[in-house]
C-alpha cells in the first residue's frame, strides 16, 4: 500500500468540528493533515443553517476560540449577522455558507494545515491499542496515512468504531436515532412579504407544545435582522389535510440570513435512519429529495412570499443528527446539560438547545409520548461544561473525538450535536491531539492544566467568571 509521511495530528472529517480541530492542532504547533470525503470544507455548516446557542439563554457567551473567530470574521465582512439573543435557542448567528467555507479555508491555509480532499477514511492502522493512522480510499486507490494522534471528526465515529473502541448506536435502551433531514435553500423569496404574513398571523409563529411555554414568538421577533423559527402550523395542517404535503412535520423550519432573498428550509424528515447503514442512508437520500420538492411546491403555492421562489441548493449529503456515541471515561448526561454543570477538566462549553426531533410516531421523548411530527426543545439557561474525558474513547489510545459523536447520552447528544458546540469540541480535540502528539504521551494522560491553559490562550471559553466556575 502507498504510504504517506507521518504527521503529528491527523483529522478525519472537515465538517464543523474537524475544520476547527485541524486549525487548533496546527496553531498548537502540530504538523496537521485534514482528510475530507467531499471537495469542500464545512460539512453541515455549509448548508446555510444558522449557528444557534453561540451564547446561552442567560446571555453568557459559550463559544470562544477559533469557532468564534471564524464567525467574527464573517460578521466583520458583512457575511454574517452578529450573534443576537433569542429566548428559545439562546442566540442566533446567521451566516452566508459560501463565505463561511472560504473563511475556514483561509484559516486552515494560514495555519499551514495540509488538506487531502476527496479521500474517504476506510480503516484504521492499529499498533496494539494505539491508533497509528488511517487507511484512505481515494481516486488513486488505497493509501496509508500514519499519524501520532488522530482526531475522529467523522460525525459517525467511523474511526473509533473501526479501532474497536466501545460506542453506543442511538438511544441506550432501544437504539432509536433522531431522524435524518436534507436541509435546502430557496432563493427568489420575497422575505418582506413572508414576514408581513407572519406579523398578520402571529398564530403561525406559535411554538410547538413541548417548548418552553410563555415564550411564544411575536411580531417583535420579526424585527431582528435574521429570523429562525418553526413556522406556519396552520398552513401546514391545511396542506396535509388537502393531501399535498406528506412530510412528517407539523411546521416548516425557516431561517433568513445575510444572502438577499434566500431562506434556509428545515422541513424534510426520515425516521429510523441509521447513518452507519448505507442502505438506510440511500433510502434517506432518495426520500428527502422527494420531500424537498414537495415542500418547495407547498411553499410556492401556499406560503406568501414564495410564489416566485426556486430551489437554490440542498446539502450534498443528507443530514444525520445522531448515530454512534463514543463511550469515554465520562458520559455527559441530560442533567449535566440542563443544569449547566462545570467539570474540573472542562475543555469546551455548550449552549445549543436540547433539540430532540420526534424519533418516530408514538416514541417516548423526555418522558412524553410524541406524535412523530414535532420537536422537543429545552432551553439552555447556563452553558454546560464538556469534560476532556468525553473526548477520549475508553480503550484506544492516540485517538480524540470531536463533534456530535463525543461521549454523551442519547439525550445530552441532542444539544452536543449543535454546530456551535461542534466548533467548541473541535477546538478542544485539536488542541488535545496536538499537545499529546508533541509531548509523545497518550491523550488520556495529557496534563489537563496545560491543555486548559493552551485553550484559554487561544481564547476558548472554559469557565464563567474568575477562575473555576
Amino acid at each position, binding site marked *: 500500500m502507498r504510504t504517506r509521511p507521518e504527521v503529528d495530528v491527523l483529522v478525519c472529517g472537515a465538517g464543523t468540528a474537524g475544520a476547527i480541530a485541524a486549525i487548533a492542532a496546527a496553531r498548537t504547533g502540530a504538523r496537521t493533515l485534514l482528510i475530507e470525503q467531499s471537495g469542500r470544507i464545512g460539512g453541515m455548516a455549509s448548508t446555510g443553517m444558522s449557528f444557534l446557542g453561540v451564547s446561552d439563554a442567560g446571555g453568557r457567551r459559550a463559544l470562544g476560540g477559533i469557532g468564534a473567530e471564524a464567525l467574527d470574521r464573517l460578521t466583520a465582512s458583512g457575511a454574517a449577522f452578529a450573534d443576537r439573543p433569542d429566548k428559545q435557542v439562546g442566540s442566533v448567528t446567521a451566516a452566508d455558507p459560501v463565505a463561511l467555507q*472560504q473563511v475556514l479555508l483561509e484559516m486552515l491555509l494560514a495555519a499551514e494545515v495540509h488538506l487531502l480532499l476527496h479521500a474517504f477514511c476506510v480503516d484504521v492502522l492499529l499498533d496494539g491499542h494505539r491508533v497509528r493512522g488511517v487507511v484512505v480510499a481515494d481516486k488513486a486507490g488505497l493509501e496509508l496515512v500514519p499519524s501520532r494522534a488522530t482526531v475522529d471528526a467523522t460525525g459517525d465515529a467511523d474511526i473509533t468504531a*473501526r479501532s474497536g473502541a466501545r460506542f453506543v448506536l442511538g438511544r441506550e435502551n432501544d437504539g432509536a436515532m433522531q431522524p435524518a433531514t436534507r436541509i435546502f435553500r430557496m432563493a427568489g423569496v420575497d422575505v418582506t412579504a413572508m414576514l408581513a404574513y407572519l406579523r398578520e398571523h402571529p398564530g403561525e409563529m406559535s411554538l410547538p407544545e413541548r417548548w418552553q411555554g410563555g415564550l411564544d414568538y411575536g411580531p417583535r421577533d420579526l424585527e431582528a435582522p435574521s429570523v429562525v423559527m418553526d413556522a406556519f402550523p396552520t398552513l401546514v395542517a391545511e396542506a396535509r389535510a388537502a393531501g399535498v404535503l406528506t412530510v412528517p412535520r407539523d411546521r416548516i423550519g425557516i431561517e433568513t440570513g445575510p444572502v438577499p432573498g434566500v431562506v434556509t428550509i428545515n422541513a424534510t424528515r426520515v425516521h429510523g435512519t441509521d447513518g452507519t447503514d448505507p442502505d438506510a442512508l440511500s433510502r434517506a437520500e432518495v426520500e428527502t429529495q422527494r420531500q424537498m420538492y414537495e415542500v418547495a411546491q407547498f411553499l410556492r403555492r401556499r406560503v406568501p412570499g414564495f410564489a416566485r421562489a*426556486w430551489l437554490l441548493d440542498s446539502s*450534498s449529503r443528507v443530514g444525520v443528527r445522531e448515530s454512534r456515541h463514543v463511550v469515554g471515561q465520562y458520559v455527559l448526561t441530560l442533567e449535566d446539560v440542563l443544569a449547566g454543570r462545570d467539570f474540573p477538566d472542562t475543555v469546551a462549553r455548550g449552549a445549543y438547545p436540547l433539540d430532540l426531533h420526534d424519533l418516530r410516531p408514538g416514541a417516548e421523548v423526555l418522558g412524553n409520548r410524541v406524535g412523530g411530527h414535532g420537536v422537543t426543545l429545552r432551553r439552555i439557561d447556563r452553558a454546560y461544561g464538556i469534560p476532556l474525558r468525553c473526548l477520549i474513547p475508553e480503550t484506544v489510545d492516540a485517538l480524540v473525538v470531536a463533534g456530535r459523536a463525543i461521549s454523551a447520552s442519547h439525550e445530552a447528544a441532542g444539544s452536543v450535536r449543535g454546530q456551535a458546540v461542534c466548533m467548541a469540541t473541535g477546538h478542544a480535540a485539536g488542541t488535545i491531539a496536538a499537545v499529546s502528539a508533541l509531548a509523545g504521551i497518550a491523550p488520556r494522560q495529557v496534563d489537563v492544566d496545560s491543555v486548559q491553559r493552551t485553550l484559554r490562550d487561544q481564547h476558548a471559553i472554559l469557565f464563567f467568571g474568575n477562575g473555576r466556575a
Partner: protein
Amino acid sequence: MAALIDASGRIVEPSRDVPVARETDVLVVGGGIAGVMAALAAGRCGARTLLAERFGSLGGTGTSAMMNLFYVPYPAARGPIRELFDRLIARDGAIPGEFVVYDPELYKVTALEMLAEANVEILPHTLVSDVVMHDRVLRGIVVENKSGRQAVLSRVTIDASGDADVSARAGAPYVKGRESDGKMRPMTLIFRMGGVDVGRLVEYVKAHPEDFSPDPLQCMLDLDHHMIRVFGFFKLVEEAKARGELWQDCYYFRVESVFPERGVLTVNATRVYGVDGTKAEDLSRAEIETRHQMLQLAAFARGRIPGFQRSFILDSASTIGVRETRRIRGEYIMTEDDIVEGRRYNDVVAVDANQQNPRQQGGHPPDGKEGGPQDIEARELIARMFVYEIPYRSLVPKDVDGLLVAGRCISVEHHADVYTRNQGSAMATGVAAGVAAALAAHAGVPPRHVDIGAVQAKLRALGIDLGLLGRLGPSPERLE
C-alpha cells in the same frame, strides 16, 4: 477489522472475507449523467440494476460540479434524453434551445423519479476501491461506505465513473490526457452569482462587441428566449490584471446558464492547469486554488461589469469539475477525423451533436492561455454544428470482459474528446451501454459478443434515432 503493525514493524492488512452486499444483473458505477442514463436504459430493458454513486445525490458534473447546461441542442435529443428534458421543462426546470440550461436541484429530483420508475436501485455515498476479477472477467467491485468494505457482484458492470476508475483497476488499457504528452484539460470550480441585472449586462455586451467572442454560440444575447451566454470581457480582464485584481493566467470572464428573471447565472471561468483528477493531492490543490480565483472573479464582476453591482456569490459547486483524465483503449479508438468527416459505423449505438471549431482545442487547451490574445478559437473563430456517430466498439474495453464504459472515458483520442466529453455524448453513450449491458446480462454473453443488431433495435424502441447523421450529414446548418 483494522490494518495492524506486527512485531517487526511491518504494516499488514489481515486477510479477510469481503461480505457480498448485493448481486445484480447490471451494475452502474457513477451517478453522473452517463450513469443515470445507463441505469435508466438497463432498468427499462428489464435488468436488475444497481447504481453506485460516491456523492449523496445524482447528476455528477451536472449537479455536484454545477455544470448546469446540457451541451446538446434540444432538437437533437431523443428517447430517454428528450424525456428528461421535457420533464424538466414541465417543471419550469429547464430552458431548451441551442443547448439546454437547467435547474440542478430539479434535475436531481427528476433523475431520481425516472430511476425509481425503472426499478433501479441506488446506492449513494459509495466509493469504489477495487474490483473483483475472475481471470479477465470483471465479476463486480469492492466498495467502501459507511458499512465498511463490501463487494457488489454483477453480470455486467458499466464504468460511468468519468475517470475510468473501474476499468483502470480491472487492468483494461487506457491513456491519460493527451496522447503526445499526457497533459490534461484544466479543472474548474463553477459558482453561481445572484442579484445580477441581466438586462443591463446584455445591453452592455451588445454595446461593446469588440470585447467579446464573435461566435454567436459563445455570446448569446436573446433575452426573449432566455438564451444567454457571454464569453469575453477581454479588455476589462486585462485592466483588472494590471491593477493586480485577477491572477495572471486569467484572460476572460464567462457566464452561462442564465435564468434572467431570477437574476442568477453560472460563472465558468476558474481554471487550474497541470492537475490530475486521479490524484487526491491534485484535486485538493485545485479545490483550494479555484476558491481563491472565485473570490477574485466575483469582486471583479461586482466592481467592473455593468449589471453586477449588487450581485453576490450565491453558491459554489460541492466538487471541482474535472474535464479530462483517463480514457479507455477499446476495440475502436475514435479520432477527430471520424467526427469531422462524418464516419458511419455498422455498430453505431449513439449519435450526438454539438458545436465545435474543428482541429482546435475545444476551448480548453491543456497548455493554458485559454482566451488569451493568441487563442484564435476564443477571439476569432465561429463554431459549427457536428453530428457524429459513436460505435459500440468504443464502449468495449480491450482485454477485460464483463465491462462497458460510458461517458467521457470512452475510447477516443484526445482531439475527439473535445466532442465526446460533453453531457450530450455522456447521455447517448449511457443509454447505449445500459441497453447493451442488459442484453448481454440476459443472454449470458460477454458484452463484446452481444448481438449488435438486437442492441440497435432496442435503442430504436427506446426512441433513439440512430439515422440522424445519415439524414443530415456531419455538419448541417440546422437540426431537424
